[in-house]
């Protein structure tokens, strides 16, 4: 006596009744055993029920692969019940990865041609959901036949199946393009919608198809106009808007056809204006249509007045009480801010208001848009808003806000003092979130503003005295105090209240930084060097400083130890040189792009190197050069020791001695890598005084829409060459041409062996991990000969 199998709903009930995960597993395993047995026995009557139960447990996450063959059997059955469940099973359990999927091709072929509409519907649905390229190729003729069959039910499905087929097998476009013209004359909304979707797909894939379909623009305009003026039809309308799904699809196709094409754009101009002004915006359906209209207007060659209308609609969207509408408005305005800057500017106050949004995804968009709207005339007002935002914004936006403010400040600062103040404010408010190059930028800026040295050092001193935890701020302050300590002690500065600072206080503060557990190794390096510099700036005796320096001579941190030992040596053996060596920094010339300069500066400031060489090695070689310098030419005592992390300490400058012959012709740059908008460039320098040395600057740029993060570049050269990598300027390249990453490679090639270079890149882009390993081809011979 066969035990009757459990009904689907009873099984569901039982599973839901399970009190624990273990109990549920037990019930399901028991039932699956029954189902497996039933499949083995080949019971045709209850097969559909068994598979349905299996599909249910599959949704709960349990394995169901043993049901795959049963799907085939059910699809082949003549009973509609069987087919219904069988096809559903195929869509859920089979896909192109399983060879089994091809076995349903024949069944589908039969079902497509046997004329019972619901069955044809099932077959088409399955084909368009999981049809692989092979299946599509096989069944294209059947689907083509169904396009012109009388029944709209089948036709509309056939059309969308054709869309899927073209996505899988683009060559099938030639099969499905011809029927489109005729289909466009249909009145049935489902058929029209499918046809327009099909035409859109064809046009997106082939410029020839695009040109071909431009001639239907008037017809599309007519269809849309009829739709809009037709009046209320209960069947297809939503909240008084006639078939918004169809409207949106037509508008999207018009966008594609009108793009970069004057004539088409002109044909649709009036209609777009009509839709833009007449669509009811009280509910989401109307706004959806309006939104698509705006996108189309902005993308085609529309009249100026129409563009302004579109931007104003977006501006109105910004004031809508519906959060979703505000979101799409912000996203769209962001896309338009480059091309229609002045139009978007008009909505600046509203955009700034959106900074106060509680929803983080909205305030993030508002932030991006606000930053894009900053220009020289509104910079003061905008910065005020943005700085206020920085103080209260959610933590994950802090970093972007801080760097955005700093970037905007750099581009549009009205005065240097304002600029310094702004950076200072950012460092105190969000110090831990600023990017690595902010420190270098600020020191460069301050260094260049001679009239503001006293002001800067005073303000930084005050800030430091209050809080020594924000590392970038501490680093800049330490550097400044080191450089301009004499101005600090001089006491007079008209711009802020006079402050009497005495030497002991200054030294005590720097020592505090040095000893604080909150200070990073880099920061302590800054502090130590600053102390050293003060030995020449202050009037008192240097015992205190000498003491600190000698204590750190046995510090566990190798970097600090090295510095301390060298400074100590400076005191003891080369005291006569000390004043000259510790003179004020000359301003580094900004000869190349800003990024390169900052990259070099921050390289000096950064501690870690990505490459194998031991970190002390660069220091050792720099020390060697220092001693050479002291023994050798007198003309370069103006340059400070390379150990100083301040700008201009790059080795290249040191070697740029005045008596060398003019440099040879520059070696051309080389683009070595490109992927999805991310590029890597190499530029080569052979310093004339050292023919064995090759300096390669690697620059990573990003013109895509997504940020590149966690960027690491590693390199390898043949054994006869020596390679040293210095620390990169950073690990992130923001999207759309954001600040590039630069990194310096030093290659020693004394034997003039042919240069070969292998690179390994790893980074995150578009939420994927990218790894690329490749050898650089076409290295210029000038780089090693």
């Amino acid at each position, binding site marked *: 006596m066969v035990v009757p199998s459990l009904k689907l709903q009873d099984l569901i009930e039982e599973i839901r009744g399970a009190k624990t995960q273990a109990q549920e597993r037990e019930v399901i395993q028991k039932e699956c055993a029954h189902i497996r047995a039933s499949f083995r026995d080949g019971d045709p009557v209850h097969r559909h029920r068994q598979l349905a139960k299996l599909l249910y447990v599959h949704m709960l996450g349990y394995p169901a692969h043993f049901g795959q063959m049963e799907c085939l059997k059910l699809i082949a059955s003549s009973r509609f019940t069987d087919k219904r469940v069988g096809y559903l099973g195929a869509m859920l359990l089979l896909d192109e990865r399983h060879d089994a999927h091809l076995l349903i091709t024949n069944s589908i072929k039969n079902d497509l041609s046997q004329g019972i509409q*619901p069955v044809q519907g099932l077959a088409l649905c399955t084909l368009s959901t999981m049809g692989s390229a092979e299946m599509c190729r096989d069944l294209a003729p059947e689907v083509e036949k169904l396009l012109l069959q009388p029944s709209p039910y089948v036709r509309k499905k056939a059309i969308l199946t054709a869309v899927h087929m073209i996505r899988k097998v683009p060559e099938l476009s030639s099969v499905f393009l011809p029927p489109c013209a005729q289909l466009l004359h249909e009145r049935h909304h489902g058929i029209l919608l499918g046809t327009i979707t099909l035409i859109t797909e064809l046009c997106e894939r082939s410029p020839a198809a695009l040109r071909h379909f431009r001639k239907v623009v008037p017809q599309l305009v007519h269809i849309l106009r009829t739709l809009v003026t037709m009046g209320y039809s209960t069947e297809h309308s939503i909240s008084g808007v006639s078939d918004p799904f169809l409207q949106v699809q037509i508008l*999207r196709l018009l966008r594609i056809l009108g793009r970069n094409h004057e004539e088409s754009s002109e044909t649709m101009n009036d209609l777009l204006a009509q839709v833009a002004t007449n669509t009811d915006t009280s509910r989401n359906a109307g706004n959806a249509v309006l939104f698509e209209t705006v996108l189309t207007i902005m993308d085609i060659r529309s009249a100026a007045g129409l563009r302004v209308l579109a931007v104003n609609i977006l501006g109105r969207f910004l004031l809508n009480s519906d959060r979703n509408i505000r979101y799409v408005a912000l996203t769209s305005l962001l896309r338009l801010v480059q091309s229609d800057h002045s139009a978007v500017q008009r909505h600046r106050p509203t955009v700034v208001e959106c900074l106060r949004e509680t929803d983080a995804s909205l305030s993030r968009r508002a932030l991006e848009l606000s930053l894009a709207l900053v220009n020289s005339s509104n910079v003061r007002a905008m910065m005020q808003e943005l700085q206020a935002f920085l103080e209260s914004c959610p933590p994950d936006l802090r970093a972007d806000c801080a760097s955005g403010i700093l970037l905007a400040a750099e581009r549009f600062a009205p005065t240097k003092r304002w600029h310094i103040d702004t950076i200072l404010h950012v460092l105190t408010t969000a110090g831990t979130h600023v990017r690595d190059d902010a420190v270098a930028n600020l020191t460069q800026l301050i260094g260049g503003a001679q009239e503001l040295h006293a002001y800067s050092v005073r303000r930084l001193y005050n800030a430091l005295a209050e809080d020594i935890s924000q590392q970038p701020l501490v680093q800049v302050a330490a550097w400044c105090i080191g450089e301009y300590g004499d101005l600090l002690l001089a006491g007079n500065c008209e711009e802020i209240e006079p402050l009497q600072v005495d030497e002991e206080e200054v030294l005590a503060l720097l020592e505090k930084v040095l000893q604080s557990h909150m200070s990073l190794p880099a920061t302590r390096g800054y502090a130590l060097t600053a102390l050293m510099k003060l030995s020449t700036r202050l009037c008192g005796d240097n015992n205190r400083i000498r003491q600190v320096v000698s204590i750190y001579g046995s510090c566990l941190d190798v970097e600090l130890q090295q510095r301390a030992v060298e400074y100590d040596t400076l005191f003891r053996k080369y005291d006569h040189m000390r004043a000259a060596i510790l003179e004020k920094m000359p301003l580094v010339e900004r000869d190349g792009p800003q990024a390169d300069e900052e990259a070099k500066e921050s390289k000096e400031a950064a501690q870690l190197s990505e490459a194998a060489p031991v970190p002390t090695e660069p220091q050792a070689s720099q020390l060697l050069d220092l001693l050479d310098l002291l023994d050798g030419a007198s003309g370069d005592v103006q340059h400070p020791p390379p150990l100083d992390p301040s700008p201009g300490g790059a080795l290249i400058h040191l070697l740029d001695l005045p008596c060398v012959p003019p440099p040879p012709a520059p070696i051309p740059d080389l683009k070595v890598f490109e992927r999805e908008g991310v590029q890597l460039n190499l530029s080569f320098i052979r310093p004339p005084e050292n023919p064995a040395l090759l300096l390669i600057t690697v620059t990573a740029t990003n013109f895509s829409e997504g940020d590149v993060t966690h960027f690491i570049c590693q390199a390898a050269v043949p054994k006869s060459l020596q390679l040293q990598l210095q620390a990169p300027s950073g690990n992130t390249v923001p999207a759309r041409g954001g600040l590039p990453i630069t990194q310096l490679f030093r290659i020693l090639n004394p034997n003039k062996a042919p240069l070969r270079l292998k690179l390994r890149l790893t980074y995150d882009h578009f939420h994927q991990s990218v790894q690329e390993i490749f050898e650089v081809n076409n290295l210029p011979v000038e780089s090693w000969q």
Partner: protein
Amino acid sequence: MQFMLLFSRQGKLRLQKWYVPLSDKEKKKITRELVQTVLARKPKMCSFLEWRDLKIVYKRYASLYFCCAIEDQDNELITLEIIHRYVELLDKYFGSVCELDIIFNFEKAYFILDEFLLGGEVQETSKKNVLKAIEQADLLQESQNEEWGGLSEDIL
């Protein structure tokens, strides 16, 4: 549309319709992560979020989250209408639909969806036509079963 997921407030999947080919493992991973992300959203937040390189449109109806993944060029607002239309269809079919209906009749929920969307695109914009199609299919199913006779009324 790339896929649509329905899940409860406890993160239990009630329906999954995938319009792109992915392995079971990938589907599970995506489902798990996305469910987590959406459930973490606060009630007052907007219905759109960016996740990996997709746009996610979601809306909560009673105890069920309806979640769609669309592509960059797709219109978010109309996707909200798609979700709403689907809910209306379910409502009309089941008569005041609730989560239990979708749990116990999940295959019906799929059938209804397959009459509204095809290959990730809208195939029929008339509510009436969609419901009529389902009705025809149900009738065909029943009439065939009557031919066989001898079976209990509950087909599944």
